[in-house]
């Protein structure tokens, strides 16, 4: 069967596979960021259904820091250096 698959078709399969993995990664990153920042920023007594000013500020900063941590760890892992 291998001889029936053209090289370009094989490349396409790899591209689709990579695209799917990339999308899954982004969705997972968003989910973990959302869960983490909710836990850190939102008062779990739920006195009202609106996010208050402090919670909103915290969420914005949390997202930014989480993003930077993701990039930082990505660099450290990608560089091949053992974590210090």
């Amino acid at each position, binding site marked *: 069967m291998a001889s029936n698959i053209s090289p370009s078709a094989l490349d396409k399969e790899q591209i*689709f596979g990579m695209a799917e993995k990339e999308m899954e990664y982004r*969705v997972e990153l968003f989910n973990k*960021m959302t869960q983490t920042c909710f836990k850190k920023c*939102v008062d779990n007594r739920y006195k009202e259904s609106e996010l208050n000013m402090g*919670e909103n500020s915290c969420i914005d900063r949390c997202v930014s820091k989480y*993003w930077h941590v993701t990039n930082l760890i990505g660099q450290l892992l990608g560089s091949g250096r053992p974590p210090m």
Partner: protein
Amino acid sequence: MDKSMLADLDSLPEADKQRMTVMIDQLQIRDSLRMYNSLVERCFNDCVDTFKHKSLQKQEETCVRRCAEKFLKHSMRVGMRFAELNQGAATQD
């Protein structure tokens, strides 16, 4: 999931576009179900502590509603900030 993924599909041949659309739809369904499950777990854990009754009490129901509403608003806000970061926009500290 953000719409920018869908915008990139326009340049693809029809069959590939169809395949990518199916992939995104499946991912979206899976993601929605996962969010549903995790939201139930979170709000239950935060709002239900006593088991003197088997039916949900008024206070518990109010808490669950607020928990869910707050999470959905939170998720929307995170989505906006996430999109900004993806576009490389500078944000203030």
